[in-house]
Protein backbone atom coordinates (compact mmCIF):
# COMPACT_ATOMS: atom_id res chain seq x y z
CA UNK A 1 0.00 0.00 0.00
CA UNK A 2 1.35 3.40 -0.96
CA UNK A 3 1.07 6.02 1.76
CA UNK A 4 -0.35 8.59 -0.67
CA UNK A 5 -3.61 7.95 -2.45
CA UNK A 6 -5.62 10.32 -4.62
CA UNK A 7 -9.18 10.08 -5.86
CA UNK A 8 -12.68 11.45 -6.19
CA UNK A 9 -14.97 11.55 -3.16
CA UNK A 10 -18.14 9.46 -2.81
CA UNK A 11 -20.12 10.60 0.18
CA UNK A 12 -22.22 8.44 2.50
CA UNK A 13 -23.95 9.01 5.84
CA UNK A 14 -23.74 7.54 9.33
CA UNK A 15 -24.03 3.86 10.29
CA UNK A 16 -23.28 2.42 6.84
CA UNK A 17 -23.62 -1.25 7.76
CA UNK A 18 -21.99 -4.33 6.28
CA UNK A 19 -25.35 -5.65 5.06
CA UNK A 20 -25.63 -2.51 2.91
CA UNK A 21 -21.99 -2.61 1.78
CA UNK A 22 -22.31 -6.23 0.62
CA UNK A 23 -26.02 -7.11 0.48
CA UNK A 24 -26.85 -10.67 1.48
CA UNK A 25 -28.29 -11.47 -1.94
CA UNK A 26 -24.84 -11.03 -3.48
CA UNK A 27 -22.90 -13.00 -0.90
CA UNK A 28 -22.95 -16.34 -2.65
CA UNK A 29 -22.01 -14.84 -6.05
CA UNK A 30 -18.48 -14.89 -7.46
CA UNK A 31 -16.49 -11.80 -6.41
CA UNK A 32 -16.76 -10.15 -9.85
CA UNK A 33 -20.56 -10.24 -9.57
CA UNK A 34 -20.75 -9.66 -5.83
CA UNK A 35 -18.78 -6.43 -6.06
CA UNK A 36 -21.36 -5.01 -8.46
CA UNK A 37 -23.90 -4.99 -5.57
CA UNK A 38 -21.61 -2.96 -3.29
CA UNK A 39 -23.61 -0.25 -1.47
CA UNK A 40 -26.43 -0.88 -3.93
CA UNK A 41 -29.34 -0.41 -1.46
CA UNK A 42 -28.32 3.22 -0.83
CA UNK A 43 -26.49 4.16 -4.05
CA UNK A 44 -27.10 1.89 -7.05
CA UNK A 45 -24.69 3.99 -9.19
CA UNK A 46 -21.70 3.43 -6.94
CA UNK A 47 -20.50 -0.01 -8.05
CA UNK A 48 -20.98 0.85 -11.72
CA UNK A 49 -19.28 4.24 -11.70
CA UNK A 50 -16.61 4.12 -9.00
CA UNK A 51 -13.10 4.57 -10.38
CA UNK A 52 -9.87 3.02 -9.10
CA UNK A 53 -8.51 5.20 -6.31
CA UNK A 54 -11.82 6.88 -5.47
CA UNK A 55 -12.32 7.70 -1.82
CA UNK A 56 -15.39 7.00 0.32
CA UNK A 57 -16.17 9.67 2.90
CA UNK A 58 -18.64 8.69 5.55
CA UNK A 59 -20.00 9.71 8.93
CA UNK A 60 -20.03 7.73 12.14
CA UNK A 61 -19.74 3.99 12.62
CA UNK A 62 -18.82 3.02 9.05
CA UNK A 63 -18.95 -0.76 8.55
CA UNK A 64 -21.10 -1.55 11.58
CA UNK A 65 -22.86 -4.86 11.76
CA UNK A 66 -21.66 -8.30 10.89
CA UNK A 67 -18.13 -9.66 10.70
CA UNK A 68 -18.60 -10.42 7.00
CA UNK A 69 -15.23 -9.56 5.57
CA UNK A 70 -16.85 -9.43 2.14
CA UNK A 71 -17.48 -5.74 2.90
CA UNK A 72 -13.75 -5.09 2.67
CA UNK A 73 -13.18 -7.64 -0.08
CA UNK A 74 -15.80 -6.01 -2.34
CA UNK A 75 -14.47 -2.46 -1.79
CA UNK A 76 -10.98 -3.69 -2.58
CA UNK A 77 -12.21 -5.51 -5.67
CA UNK A 78 -13.70 -2.22 -6.87
CA UNK A 79 -10.24 -0.70 -6.25
CA UNK A 80 -11.54 1.89 -3.80
CA UNK A 81 -8.47 3.87 -2.73
CA UNK A 82 -9.40 4.52 0.87
CA UNK A 83 -12.25 5.02 3.32
CA UNK A 84 -12.39 8.18 5.37
CA UNK A 85 -14.92 8.25 8.20
CA UNK A 86 -15.73 10.03 11.38
CA UNK A 87 -15.44 6.65 13.05
CA UNK A 88 -15.31 3.00 12.03
CA UNK A 89 -17.03 -0.01 13.53
CA UNK A 90 -14.48 -2.22 15.21
CA UNK A 91 -14.60 -5.39 13.11
CA UNK A 92 -14.63 -3.47 9.82
CA UNK A 93 -11.64 -1.47 11.02
CA UNK A 94 -9.71 -4.67 11.78
CA UNK A 95 -10.79 -6.35 8.55
CA UNK A 96 -9.63 -3.35 6.51
CA UNK A 97 -6.18 -3.51 8.06
CA UNK A 98 -6.17 -7.30 7.72
CA UNK A 99 -6.66 -6.89 3.96
CA UNK A 100 -4.51 -3.81 3.46
CA UNK A 101 -7.39 -1.44 2.65
CA UNK A 102 -6.42 2.12 3.62
CA UNK A 103 -8.64 3.76 6.24
CA UNK A 104 -8.47 7.15 7.89
CA UNK A 105 -10.44 8.51 10.82
CA UNK A 106 -11.14 12.24 10.62
CA UNK A 107 -13.41 13.76 13.27
CA UNK A 108 -16.40 15.41 11.60
CA UNK A 109 -15.15 14.13 8.24
CA UNK A 110 -18.35 14.81 6.24
CA UNK A 111 -18.18 18.57 6.80
CA UNK A 112 -14.84 18.83 4.96
CA UNK A 113 -15.75 17.02 1.76
CA UNK A 114 -18.37 17.18 -0.97
CA UNK A 115 -19.30 14.47 -3.46
CA UNK A 116 -16.87 14.61 -6.38
CA UNK A 117 -14.09 16.54 -4.58
CA UNK A 118 -10.58 15.55 -5.65
CA UNK A 119 -8.68 14.61 -2.52
CA UNK A 120 -5.24 13.30 -1.66
CA UNK A 121 -4.70 11.25 1.48
CA UNK A 122 -1.46 10.64 3.33
CA UNK A 123 -2.31 7.54 5.36
CA UNK A 124 0.98 7.55 7.27
CA UNK A 125 0.55 11.15 8.37
CA UNK A 126 -3.19 10.70 8.81
CA UNK A 127 -4.04 13.71 6.65
CA UNK A 128 -6.39 14.57 3.78
CA UNK A 129 -5.91 17.47 1.38
CA UNK A 130 -8.09 18.89 -1.38
CA UNK A 131 -5.84 18.88 -4.43
CA UNK A 132 -6.52 22.56 -5.11
CA UNK A 133 -5.71 23.56 -1.53
CA UNK A 134 -2.45 23.63 0.38
CA UNK A 135 -3.46 22.98 3.97
CA UNK A 136 -4.25 19.38 4.82
CA UNK A 137 -7.01 18.31 7.23
CA UNK A 138 -5.50 16.44 10.13
CA UNK A 139 -7.09 13.11 11.00
CA UNK A 140 -6.08 10.49 13.55
CA UNK A 141 -3.05 8.57 12.27
CA UNK A 142 -3.07 4.80 12.61
CA UNK A 143 -1.00 3.26 15.41
CA UNK A 144 2.44 2.06 14.20
CA UNK A 145 1.50 -1.64 14.53
CA UNK A 146 -1.55 -1.16 12.33
CA UNK A 147 0.33 0.93 9.80
CA UNK A 148 3.00 -1.74 9.57
CA UNK A 149 0.39 -4.41 8.79
CA UNK A 150 -1.33 -2.15 6.28
CA UNK A 151 1.99 -1.54 4.52
CA UNK A 152 2.62 -5.29 4.32
CA UNK A 153 -0.71 -5.63 2.49
CA UNK A 154 -2.52 -7.19 5.43
CA UNK A 155 -2.32 -10.11 7.81
CA UNK A 156 -2.07 -12.94 5.26
CA UNK A 157 1.32 -11.78 3.91
CA UNK A 158 2.46 -11.75 7.55
CA UNK A 159 1.15 -15.27 8.01
CA UNK A 160 2.93 -16.39 4.87
CA UNK A 161 6.23 -15.08 6.27
CA UNK A 162 5.64 -16.90 9.53
CA UNK A 163 4.72 -20.17 7.88
CA UNK A 164 7.83 -19.97 5.69
CA UNK A 165 10.05 -19.31 8.70
CA UNK A 166 8.85 -22.49 10.46
Amino acid at each position, binding site marked *: MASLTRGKVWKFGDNIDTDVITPTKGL*SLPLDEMKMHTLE*PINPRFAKEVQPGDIIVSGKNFGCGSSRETAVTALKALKVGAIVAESF*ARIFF*RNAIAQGLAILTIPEAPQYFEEGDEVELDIKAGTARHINQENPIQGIPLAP*DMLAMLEKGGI*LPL*LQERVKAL
Partner: protein
Amino acid sequence: MGMTLAEKILARASGRDEVKPGEFVTARIDLAMCHEALGMVSDGFRSAGAKKVWDSDKVVVMLDHYVPSPTVKTAEVHKKVRKDVKDLGIKHYYGESEGVCHQVLVEKGHVLPGRLVVATDSHTTTYGALGAAGTGIGFSEMAYVLATGELWFRVPETIRFEISGALSPLVTSKDVILSIAGTYSSEVAQYKSIEFTGSAAQNMTVASRMTMSNMAMELGAKFAFFEPDEQTLTYLKGLTRQPLTPFKSDRDALYEQTYRVDVTGLEPQIAIPYSVDNVKPISELEEVVINQAVVGSCTNGRLEDLQAAASILKGRAVHPDVRLLVIPASKSVYRDALKSGLLNVFLDANAIICNPSCGPCFGQHMGQLAAGETCVASINRNFRGRMGSDEAKVYLASSATVAASAIEGKIVDPRNFA
Protein backbone atom coordinates in the same frame (compact mmCIF):
# COMPACT_ATOMS: atom_id res chain seq x y z
CA MET B 1 -3.32 -0.04 39.46
CA GLY B 2 -6.10 -2.64 39.38
CA MET B 3 -7.43 -4.16 36.21
CA THR B 4 -10.85 -4.65 34.61
CA LEU B 5 -11.99 -8.06 33.33
CA ALA B 6 -10.80 -7.27 29.79
CA GLU B 7 -7.40 -6.13 31.04
CA LYS B 8 -6.98 -9.23 33.24
CA ILE B 9 -7.76 -11.62 30.42
CA LEU B 10 -5.59 -9.84 27.85
CA ALA B 11 -2.71 -9.60 30.35
CA ARG B 12 -2.91 -13.32 31.11
CA ALA B 13 -3.26 -14.28 27.44
CA SER B 14 -0.28 -12.16 26.40
CA GLY B 15 1.96 -13.31 29.24
CA ARG B 16 2.14 -9.96 30.98
CA ASP B 17 1.57 -8.94 34.58
CA GLU B 18 -0.35 -5.89 33.59
CA VAL B 19 -1.79 -4.19 30.52
CA LYS B 20 -3.28 -0.72 30.06
CA PRO B 21 -5.91 0.61 27.65
CA GLY B 22 -4.37 1.68 24.34
CA GLU B 23 -1.52 -0.83 24.46
CA PHE B 24 -1.13 -3.36 21.68
CA VAL B 25 -0.59 -6.96 22.71
CA THR B 26 -0.21 -10.29 20.95
CA ALA B 27 -2.42 -12.73 22.80
CA ARG B 28 -2.70 -16.51 22.80
CA ILE B 29 -6.22 -17.56 21.82
CA ASP B 30 -8.00 -20.06 24.08
CA LEU B 31 -10.75 -20.94 21.62
CA ALA B 32 -11.48 -20.13 17.98
CA MET B 33 -14.84 -20.83 16.36
CA CYS B 34 -15.85 -20.68 12.70
CA HIS B 35 -19.28 -21.25 11.25
CA GLU B 36 -19.88 -21.50 7.50
CA ALA B 37 -17.19 -18.83 7.10
CA LEU B 38 -14.57 -21.57 7.42
CA GLY B 39 -15.09 -22.14 3.69
CA MET B 40 -13.56 -18.69 3.06
CA VAL B 41 -11.14 -18.72 6.00
CA SER B 42 -9.53 -21.90 4.73
CA ASP B 43 -8.78 -20.29 1.35
CA GLY B 44 -6.66 -17.61 3.06
CA PHE B 45 -5.17 -20.21 5.41
CA ARG B 46 -3.99 -22.37 2.52
CA SER B 47 -2.86 -19.45 0.34
CA ALA B 48 -0.42 -18.50 3.11
CA GLY B 49 0.96 -22.03 3.08
CA ALA B 50 -0.58 -23.25 6.36
CA LYS B 51 -1.67 -26.89 6.60
CA LYS B 52 -3.11 -27.81 10.02
CA VAL B 53 -4.74 -25.78 12.80
CA TRP B 54 -2.38 -24.86 15.63
CA ASP B 55 -4.24 -26.90 18.26
CA SER B 56 -7.00 -29.29 17.26
CA ASP B 57 -8.55 -29.06 20.71
CA LYS B 58 -8.98 -25.28 20.60
CA VAL B 59 -10.94 -24.95 17.39
CA VAL B 60 -14.68 -25.47 16.97
CA VAL B 61 -16.52 -25.49 13.65
CA MET B 62 -20.29 -25.24 13.32
CA LEU B 63 -22.92 -25.07 10.63
CA ASP B 64 -25.80 -22.79 11.61
CA HIS B 65 -26.37 -19.88 9.23
CA TYR B 66 -28.34 -21.76 6.59
CA VAL B 67 -29.18 -25.26 7.75
CA PRO B 68 -30.35 -27.48 6.23
CA SER B 69 -28.98 -26.02 3.05
CA PRO B 70 -31.61 -24.10 1.02
CA THR B 71 -29.71 -23.92 -2.29
CA VAL B 72 -27.11 -25.78 -4.28
CA LYS B 73 -24.63 -22.94 -3.70
CA THR B 74 -24.96 -23.13 0.08
CA ALA B 75 -24.79 -26.92 -0.12
CA GLU B 76 -21.43 -26.49 -1.83
CA VAL B 77 -20.28 -24.25 1.04
CA HIS B 78 -21.31 -26.90 3.57
CA LYS B 79 -19.55 -29.60 1.56
CA LYS B 80 -16.36 -27.55 1.54
CA VAL B 81 -16.58 -26.85 5.28
CA ARG B 82 -16.97 -30.56 6.09
CA LYS B 83 -13.91 -31.36 3.98
CA ASP B 84 -11.91 -28.49 5.53
CA VAL B 85 -12.73 -29.80 9.01
CA LYS B 86 -11.07 -33.10 8.13
CA ASP B 87 -8.17 -31.69 6.14
CA LEU B 88 -7.21 -29.04 8.70
CA GLY B 89 -7.33 -31.47 11.62
CA ILE B 90 -10.26 -29.92 13.48
CA LYS B 91 -11.62 -32.08 16.30
CA HIS B 92 -14.77 -30.28 17.46
CA TYR B 93 -17.36 -30.11 14.71
CA TYR B 94 -21.11 -29.59 15.18
CA GLY B 95 -23.18 -30.07 12.06
CA GLU B 96 -26.63 -29.04 10.85
CA SER B 97 -28.63 -30.56 13.70
CA GLU B 98 -27.24 -28.59 16.64
CA GLY B 99 -28.42 -24.97 16.46
CA VAL B 100 -27.00 -21.44 16.61
CA CYS B 101 -23.25 -21.35 17.21
CA HIS B 102 -23.24 -19.07 20.26
CA GLN B 103 -25.83 -21.13 22.12
CA VAL B 104 -24.27 -24.46 21.18
CA LEU B 105 -20.72 -23.40 22.09
CA VAL B 106 -21.91 -22.47 25.57
CA GLU B 107 -24.03 -25.61 26.03
CA LYS B 108 -21.15 -27.85 24.97
CA GLY B 109 -18.94 -26.37 27.68
CA HIS B 110 -16.42 -24.64 25.40
CA VAL B 111 -16.96 -21.19 26.90
CA LEU B 112 -15.54 -20.72 30.39
CA PRO B 113 -14.90 -17.65 32.55
CA GLY B 114 -11.59 -15.95 31.80
CA ARG B 115 -11.10 -17.47 28.36
CA LEU B 116 -10.20 -15.45 25.28
CA VAL B 117 -12.50 -16.55 22.46
CA VAL B 118 -12.55 -15.33 18.86
CA ALA B 119 -15.05 -16.33 16.20
CA THR B 120 -16.01 -15.36 12.67
CA ASP B 121 -19.24 -13.87 13.92
CA SER B 122 -19.88 -10.44 15.31
CA HIS B 123 -22.14 -11.69 18.11
CA THR B 124 -19.26 -13.51 19.77
CA THR B 125 -19.59 -10.86 22.51
CA THR B 126 -22.34 -13.19 23.83
CA TYR B 127 -19.70 -15.17 25.78
CA GLY B 128 -19.11 -12.20 28.07
CA ALA B 129 -22.28 -13.36 29.85
CA LEU B 130 -20.17 -16.25 31.19
CA GLY B 131 -17.18 -14.03 31.96
CA ALA B 132 -15.28 -14.95 28.79
CA ALA B 133 -13.66 -12.36 26.53
CA GLY B 134 -15.47 -13.17 23.28
CA THR B 135 -15.10 -11.04 20.17
CA GLY B 136 -15.79 -11.30 16.46
CA ILE B 137 -13.06 -11.24 13.83
CA GLY B 138 -12.95 -11.48 10.04
CA PHE B 139 -11.87 -14.29 7.74
CA SER B 140 -8.25 -13.18 7.17
CA GLU B 141 -7.60 -12.74 10.87
CA MET B 142 -9.19 -16.13 11.55
CA ALA B 143 -6.85 -17.73 9.02
CA TYR B 144 -3.96 -16.24 11.01
CA VAL B 145 -5.42 -17.49 14.30
CA LEU B 146 -6.04 -21.01 13.02
CA ALA B 147 -2.42 -21.26 11.87
CA THR B 148 -0.69 -19.57 14.81
CA GLY B 149 -3.07 -19.49 17.79
CA GLU B 150 -2.28 -15.79 18.20
CA LEU B 151 -3.79 -12.43 17.36
CA TRP B 152 -3.03 -8.79 18.05
CA PHE B 153 -5.38 -6.77 20.25
CA ARG B 154 -5.57 -3.19 21.32
CA VAL B 155 -6.36 -3.24 25.04
CA PRO B 156 -9.78 -1.57 25.18
CA GLU B 157 -11.01 1.04 27.59
CA THR B 158 -13.75 -0.36 29.82
CA ILE B 159 -17.12 1.26 30.46
CA ARG B 160 -19.61 0.12 33.04
CA PHE B 161 -23.40 -0.04 32.97
CA GLU B 162 -24.60 -0.20 36.55
CA ILE B 163 -28.14 -1.52 36.30
CA SER B 164 -30.48 -1.20 39.27
CA GLY B 165 -34.19 -1.65 39.96
CA ALA B 166 -36.56 -4.50 39.21
CA LEU B 167 -38.10 -5.37 35.85
CA SER B 168 -41.89 -5.59 35.55
CA PRO B 169 -43.35 -8.95 34.47
CA LEU B 170 -42.98 -9.56 30.70
CA VAL B 171 -40.31 -6.85 30.48
CA THR B 172 -36.98 -8.54 29.78
CA SER B 173 -33.26 -8.02 29.42
CA LYS B 174 -33.90 -7.45 25.69
CA ASP B 175 -35.91 -4.37 26.62
CA VAL B 176 -33.07 -3.24 28.89
CA ILE B 177 -30.41 -3.51 26.19
CA LEU B 178 -32.66 -1.88 23.55
CA SER B 179 -33.32 0.94 25.98
CA ILE B 180 -29.57 1.36 26.51
CA ALA B 181 -29.02 1.42 22.72
CA GLY B 182 -31.73 4.04 22.33
CA THR B 183 -30.43 6.22 25.14
CA TYR B 184 -26.68 5.97 24.56
CA SER B 185 -26.48 5.18 20.79
CA SER B 186 -24.95 2.38 18.77
CA GLU B 187 -21.50 3.87 19.30
CA VAL B 188 -21.38 4.20 23.08
CA ALA B 189 -19.07 1.20 23.37
CA GLN B 190 -17.12 1.56 20.10
CA TYR B 191 -13.79 -0.33 20.51
CA LYS B 192 -14.56 -0.67 24.24
CA SER B 193 -15.19 -3.40 26.75
CA ILE B 194 -18.45 -3.29 28.70
CA GLU B 195 -19.06 -4.58 32.21
CA PHE B 196 -22.72 -4.94 33.17
CA THR B 197 -22.95 -4.58 36.94
CA GLY B 198 -25.50 -3.67 39.59
CA SER B 199 -28.32 -5.51 41.31
CA ALA B 200 -30.52 -5.92 38.23
CA ALA B 201 -27.61 -7.41 36.27
CA GLN B 202 -26.83 -9.80 39.12
CA ASN B 203 -30.48 -10.87 39.28
CA MET B 204 -30.60 -11.76 35.58
CA THR B 205 -30.50 -15.42 34.56
CA VAL B 206 -27.53 -16.57 32.48
CA ALA B 207 -29.87 -16.69 29.46
CA SER B 208 -30.95 -13.07 30.00
CA ARG B 209 -27.32 -12.03 30.41
CA MET B 210 -26.49 -13.72 27.10
CA THR B 211 -29.13 -11.55 25.42
CA MET B 212 -27.47 -8.41 26.81
CA SER B 213 -23.92 -9.45 25.89
CA ASN B 214 -25.11 -10.52 22.45
CA MET B 215 -26.73 -7.15 21.73
CA ALA B 216 -23.76 -5.26 23.20
CA MET B 217 -22.15 -5.85 19.82
CA GLU B 218 -24.74 -3.45 18.44
CA LEU B 219 -23.31 -0.80 20.79
CA GLY B 220 -19.90 -1.31 19.18
CA ALA B 221 -18.48 -3.39 22.05
CA LYS B 222 -15.37 -5.52 21.74
CA PHE B 223 -16.27 -7.52 24.86
CA ALA B 224 -19.40 -7.40 27.05
CA PHE B 225 -18.94 -8.96 30.46
CA PHE B 226 -21.03 -9.96 33.39
CA GLU B 227 -18.78 -10.78 36.32
CA PRO B 228 -18.86 -14.56 36.70
CA ASP B 229 -20.69 -15.24 39.97
CA GLU B 230 -22.19 -18.19 41.82
CA GLN B 231 -25.02 -18.35 39.31
CA THR B 232 -22.55 -18.56 36.42
CA LEU B 233 -20.62 -21.35 38.11
CA THR B 234 -23.77 -23.31 38.96
CA TYR B 235 -24.89 -23.02 35.33
CA LEU B 236 -21.53 -24.19 34.02
CA LYS B 237 -21.06 -27.06 36.46
CA GLY B 238 -23.45 -29.24 34.50
CA LEU B 239 -21.71 -28.41 31.21
CA THR B 240 -17.99 -28.90 31.83
CA ARG B 241 -15.56 -30.91 33.90
CA GLN B 242 -12.93 -28.17 33.70
CA PRO B 243 -12.09 -26.46 36.99
CA LEU B 244 -14.07 -23.26 37.39
CA THR B 245 -12.61 -20.27 39.11
CA PRO B 246 -14.60 -17.09 39.69
CA PHE B 247 -12.73 -13.92 38.97
CA LYS B 248 -13.59 -10.28 39.42
CA SER B 249 -12.40 -6.94 38.24
CA ASP B 250 -10.22 -5.18 40.79
CA ARG B 251 -11.77 -2.65 43.13
CA ASP B 252 -9.34 0.01 41.95
CA ALA B 253 -9.73 -0.85 38.26
CA LEU B 254 -10.11 2.18 36.02
CA TYR B 255 -13.37 2.69 34.14
CA GLU B 256 -13.57 5.26 31.40
CA GLN B 257 -17.21 5.92 32.20
CA THR B 258 -19.98 4.52 34.40
CA TYR B 259 -23.58 4.80 33.21
CA ARG B 260 -26.35 4.27 35.77
CA VAL B 261 -29.51 2.67 34.45
CA ASP B 262 -32.63 2.18 36.59
CA VAL B 263 -34.98 -0.37 35.03
CA THR B 264 -37.86 0.22 37.45
CA GLY B 265 -41.00 0.85 35.44
CA LEU B 266 -39.21 0.24 32.13
CA GLU B 267 -41.67 -0.38 29.28
CA PRO B 268 -41.15 -2.93 26.50
CA GLN B 269 -38.85 -1.32 23.90
CA ILE B 270 -38.91 -1.46 20.10
CA ALA B 271 -36.02 -0.77 17.69
CA ILE B 272 -37.38 0.80 14.53
CA PRO B 273 -35.80 0.21 11.08
CA TYR B 274 -33.09 0.68 10.01
CA SER B 275 -30.82 1.06 13.01
CA VAL B 276 -30.65 -0.70 16.36
CA ASP B 277 -30.44 2.55 18.32
CA ASN B 278 -33.63 3.97 16.81
CA VAL B 279 -35.61 2.88 19.86
CA LYS B 280 -38.99 3.85 21.31
CA PRO B 281 -40.89 2.62 24.35
CA ILE B 282 -43.90 0.73 23.08
CA SER B 283 -46.40 3.34 24.30
CA GLU B 284 -44.83 5.88 21.93
CA LEU B 285 -44.83 3.63 18.87
CA GLU B 286 -47.30 4.49 16.12
CA GLU B 287 -49.43 1.63 14.78
CA VAL B 288 -47.26 -0.95 13.00
CA VAL B 289 -49.15 -3.70 11.16
CA ILE B 290 -47.06 -6.86 10.71
CA ASN B 291 -46.91 -9.74 8.25
CA GLN B 292 -44.41 -11.90 10.10
CA ALA B 293 -43.18 -12.45 13.64
CA VAL B 294 -40.04 -14.33 14.67
CA VAL B 295 -39.07 -15.76 18.05
CA GLY B 296 -35.53 -17.10 17.97
CA SER B 297 -31.85 -16.39 17.15
CA CYS B 298 -28.72 -16.20 19.29
CA THR B 299 -30.27 -13.16 20.93
CA ASN B 300 -33.59 -14.60 22.13
CA GLY B 301 -34.01 -18.25 21.18
CA ARG B 302 -33.43 -19.77 24.61
CA LEU B 303 -35.92 -21.66 26.79
CA GLU B 304 -36.95 -18.59 28.83
CA ASP B 305 -37.71 -16.74 25.58
CA LEU B 306 -39.88 -19.60 24.35
CA GLN B 307 -41.56 -19.78 27.76
CA ALA B 308 -42.39 -16.08 27.66
CA ALA B 309 -43.83 -16.41 24.15
CA ALA B 310 -45.81 -19.53 25.09
CA SER B 311 -47.24 -17.88 28.23
CA ILE B 312 -48.85 -15.32 25.95
CA LEU B 313 -49.84 -17.67 23.13
CA LYS B 314 -51.42 -20.31 25.38
CA GLY B 315 -55.08 -20.68 24.44
CA ARG B 316 -54.78 -18.01 21.73
CA ALA B 317 -54.05 -18.07 18.01
CA VAL B 318 -51.74 -16.21 15.66
CA HIS B 319 -53.54 -13.53 13.63
CA PRO B 320 -54.67 -14.96 10.24
CA ASP B 321 -52.57 -12.38 8.33
CA VAL B 322 -49.37 -13.18 10.24
CA ARG B 323 -46.80 -15.98 10.04
CA LEU B 324 -45.19 -16.69 13.42
CA LEU B 325 -41.87 -18.53 13.24
CA VAL B 326 -40.52 -20.09 16.43
CA ILE B 327 -36.89 -21.17 16.24
CA PRO B 328 -35.28 -22.78 19.30
CA ALA B 329 -31.64 -21.69 19.51
CA SER B 330 -30.36 -25.25 19.95
CA LYS B 331 -31.30 -28.89 19.94
CA SER B 332 -31.18 -28.83 23.72
CA VAL B 333 -33.59 -25.86 23.88
CA TYR B 334 -35.81 -27.64 21.35
CA ARG B 335 -35.87 -30.79 23.49
CA ASP B 336 -36.64 -28.86 26.68
CA ALA B 337 -39.44 -27.00 24.90
CA LEU B 338 -40.80 -30.32 23.69
CA LYS B 339 -40.66 -31.93 27.14
CA SER B 340 -42.28 -28.99 28.88
CA GLY B 341 -45.14 -28.83 26.40
CA LEU B 342 -44.24 -25.45 24.88
CA LEU B 343 -44.16 -26.83 21.35
CA ASN B 344 -47.78 -27.94 21.71
CA VAL B 345 -48.72 -24.40 22.70
CA PHE B 346 -47.03 -23.07 19.56
CA LEU B 347 -48.63 -25.68 17.31
CA ASP B 348 -52.06 -25.04 18.82
CA ALA B 349 -51.58 -21.31 18.21
CA ASN B 350 -50.76 -22.06 14.56
CA ALA B 351 -47.10 -21.04 14.78
CA ILE B 352 -44.45 -22.56 12.51
CA ILE B 353 -41.73 -24.36 14.47
CA CYS B 354 -38.41 -24.31 12.60
CA ASN B 355 -35.25 -26.33 13.20
CA PRO B 356 -32.60 -24.89 15.55
CA SER B 357 -30.51 -22.49 13.43
CA CYS B 358 -30.04 -18.80 12.64
CA GLY B 359 -33.37 -19.02 10.80
CA PRO B 360 -34.28 -15.95 8.73
CA CYS B 361 -32.09 -13.58 10.78
CA PHE B 362 -29.12 -13.67 8.43
CA GLY B 363 -31.24 -13.16 5.32
CA GLN B 364 -30.25 -16.23 3.39
CA HIS B 365 -32.63 -18.87 4.61
CA MET B 366 -36.27 -19.52 5.48
CA GLY B 367 -38.83 -16.88 6.33
CA GLN B 368 -37.55 -14.11 4.04
CA LEU B 369 -39.70 -11.02 3.58
CA ALA B 370 -41.24 -9.65 0.39
CA ALA B 371 -41.08 -5.98 -0.61
CA GLY B 372 -43.34 -3.86 1.56
CA GLU B 373 -43.67 -6.49 4.29
CA THR B 374 -43.06 -5.86 7.97
CA CYS B 375 -41.74 -8.22 10.62
CA VAL B 376 -41.30 -7.98 14.38
CA ALA B 377 -38.48 -10.22 15.55
CA SER B 378 -36.59 -11.08 18.72
CA ILE B 379 -33.31 -10.93 16.74
CA ASN B 380 -30.45 -8.42 16.93
CA ARG B 381 -30.47 -6.38 13.71
CA ASN B 382 -32.99 -4.35 11.77
CA PHE B 383 -30.74 -3.24 8.92
CA ARG B 384 -32.12 -2.67 5.43
CA GLY B 385 -32.35 -5.98 3.60
CA ARG B 386 -31.51 -7.95 6.74
CA MET B 387 -34.36 -10.43 6.32
CA GLY B 388 -35.10 -10.46 2.61
CA SER B 389 -36.22 -7.55 0.44
CA ASP B 390 -34.49 -4.16 0.73
CA GLU B 391 -38.04 -2.79 0.85
CA ALA B 392 -39.04 -4.85 3.90
CA LYS B 393 -38.92 -3.66 7.50
CA VAL B 394 -37.77 -5.45 10.65
CA TYR B 395 -38.65 -4.17 14.12
CA LEU B 396 -36.71 -5.57 17.09
CA ALA B 397 -38.39 -6.58 20.33
CA SER B 398 -38.44 -9.18 23.10
CA SER B 399 -39.94 -12.61 22.46
CA ALA B 400 -42.91 -11.64 24.67
CA THR B 401 -43.62 -8.58 22.52
CA VAL B 402 -43.22 -10.66 19.36
CA ALA B 403 -45.74 -13.25 20.59
CA ALA B 404 -48.30 -10.65 21.63
CA SER B 405 -47.88 -8.85 18.29
CA ALA B 406 -48.33 -12.10 16.36
CA ILE B 407 -51.76 -12.51 17.98
CA GLU B 408 -52.89 -8.93 17.32
CA GLY B 409 -51.41 -8.56 13.82
CA LYS B 410 -49.67 -5.36 14.90
CA ILE B 411 -46.95 -4.48 17.39
CA VAL B 412 -48.51 -4.40 20.87
CA ASP B 413 -47.53 -4.36 24.53
CA PRO B 414 -47.22 -7.94 25.87
CA ARG B 415 -48.33 -6.73 29.31
CA ASN B 416 -51.87 -6.53 27.88
CA PHE B 417 -51.81 -10.33 27.92
CA ALA B 418 -50.48 -10.79 31.47
